[in-house]
């Protein structure tokens, strides 16, 4: 915690006129080579700036490269060209203050909740006592006290995703990457977890990149929504969400909310119309 603060103070006192954004991608391009044909350009020259502690939702048609984008940011995949900067420093490979919450929860079935949450800390080589203490704290934070010794198959989908979130939070990342974290959950659980996520995020703010298919979810959670176009993805629209926090469910029926919702809906629909024949070709 204290080193994060130190880092921020350092960045502030550094002789840079404008503070660099928390996360910046410059001309990121990813091209998958496939035997025979010309291959597949998922996105080209994608440049995004994300401010510190900003909650950014990414939305776009299926297959446009949202997961690929997040995987590259996480270091699980490599861009073919372009750079990623965190706090103005170029990064490559995993680690360095980023943690991912995966869509399928992807817990290890052989580990209990406690051991799953402690996984990232274990990979960092923290001592057993330290990592179990931290893990217990985050298990409590996501509301799973009492399930620390359960195996994933003994938990519901919503509880498993809470474990996934706790696992990512436990390494105390600056940047939290979430790839459709609630995509596999039913609507009620989803609503519940959205509020939980906001609560956790407000008590422990970090920069969040949140991929979703749900327009409502994006507006409800985010400060800013980036709408991707169909493949090859580019930024079709960058929308600032004006609502104050803390937000509540009633927001979802307000006129302004619905207006943003319609705007994004039209963008996505339009995108699909344009992308159809292009994707087929």
């Amino acid at each position, binding site marked *: 915690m204290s080193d994060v603060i130190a880092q921020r103070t350092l960045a502030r006192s550094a002789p840079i006129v404008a503070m660099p954004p928390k996360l910046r991608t410059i001309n990121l391009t990813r091209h998958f080579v496939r035997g025979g044909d010309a291959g597949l350009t998922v996105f080209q020259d994608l440049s995004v700036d994300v401010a510190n502690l900003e909650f950014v939702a990414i939305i776009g048609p299926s297959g446009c490269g949202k997961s690929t984008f997040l995987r590259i940011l996480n270091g699980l995949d490599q861009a073919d060209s372009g750079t990623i900067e965190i706090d103005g420093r170029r990064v490559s490979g995993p680690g360095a203050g980023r943690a991912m919450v995966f869509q399928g929860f992807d817990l*290890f079935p052989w580990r209990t909740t406690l051991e799953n949450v402690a*996984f990232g800390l274990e*990979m*960092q080589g923290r001592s057993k006592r330290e990592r179990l203490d931290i893990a217990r704290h985050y298990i409590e934070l996501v509301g799973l006290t009492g399930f620390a010794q359960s195996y994933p198959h003994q938990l519901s989908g919503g509880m498993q995703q809470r474990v996934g979130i706790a696992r990512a939070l436990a390494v105390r990342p600056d940047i939290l990457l979430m790839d459709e974290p609630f995509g596999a959950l039913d609507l009620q659980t989803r609503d519940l977890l959205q509020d939980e996520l906001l609560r956790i995020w407000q008590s422990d703010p970090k920069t969040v990149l949140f991929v979703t298919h749900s327009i409502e979810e994006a507006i409800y959670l985010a400060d800013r929504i980036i709408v991707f176009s169909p493949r090859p993805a580019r930024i079709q629209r960058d929308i600032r969400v004006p609502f104050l926090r803390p937000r509540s469910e009633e927001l979802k029926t307000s006129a302004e909310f619905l207006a943003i919702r319609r705007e994004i809906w039209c963008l996505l629909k339009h995108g699909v119309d344009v992308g159809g024949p292009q994707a087929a070709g």
Partner: protein
Amino acid sequence: MSSTTRLALRLTGLALFLLVWELVGRHLGDALMAPPSAVARELVALAEDDQARATIWQSIAPALVGFAIACAVGMPLGAVMGRSPIWNALLHPWVSTFVVTSVAAIVPILILLIGTGWWFVVAVVVLSSVWYVTLTTYQGAVRIERRWLDVGRSFGASRIRAFRTIMLPALFPYLLAGARIGLTHAIRSMVLAQLFIVSGIGGLLNEAGMDVSTARLLALLVVIMGIGLAASHGLGRVADWLAPWQRGLEPQR
């Protein structure tokens, strides 16, 4: 099905089997098929016969050594085949060929190569069980999910840590299943090998085959079945104890 019902059904099955055997045995006579009552008497005699007991124990030793070698070779081999397409392309055809080849067919060559001593039994045991260990481990290694390895990389796991914390636990159920199948084959082939060279349990079987009564032969058969069952069941227990997470995942046995 509740566990008591299952137990009751199993015991009923066993009782019916023994009853039919007893009836058929009495009808055919000891020379063709001794009834369970005669076999039971012979089992008691075997248990009291120090020398027979020692022979049986000594027979098991080469089977265990062979089994250990089969695991030590088969597990890494299967894991490498499952993770490396190159090694798989190179080795898989051979492993699949050997697994369908009866070891009995290679016995003459083995006898020429290493004679008929203790190591002969070990060699037969290894050659008949190692393929099962290899192929089962291979199946597990192929099934290690990419998303698990991704989680590891995402949290910055080094290769060694990823191996220890992801690959090994993911493989574990398959290692144990492989060990179990391998052990069964090890014990089966142990008897076969000893029959060829007339030693150990094979020697006892051979001797018993010359008796007028089949009671001793059948008693030995029961002993062999018992060893096989105990070994397989014991390993299953070890598996449950070492890997408690998969008890809830498996269909009920």
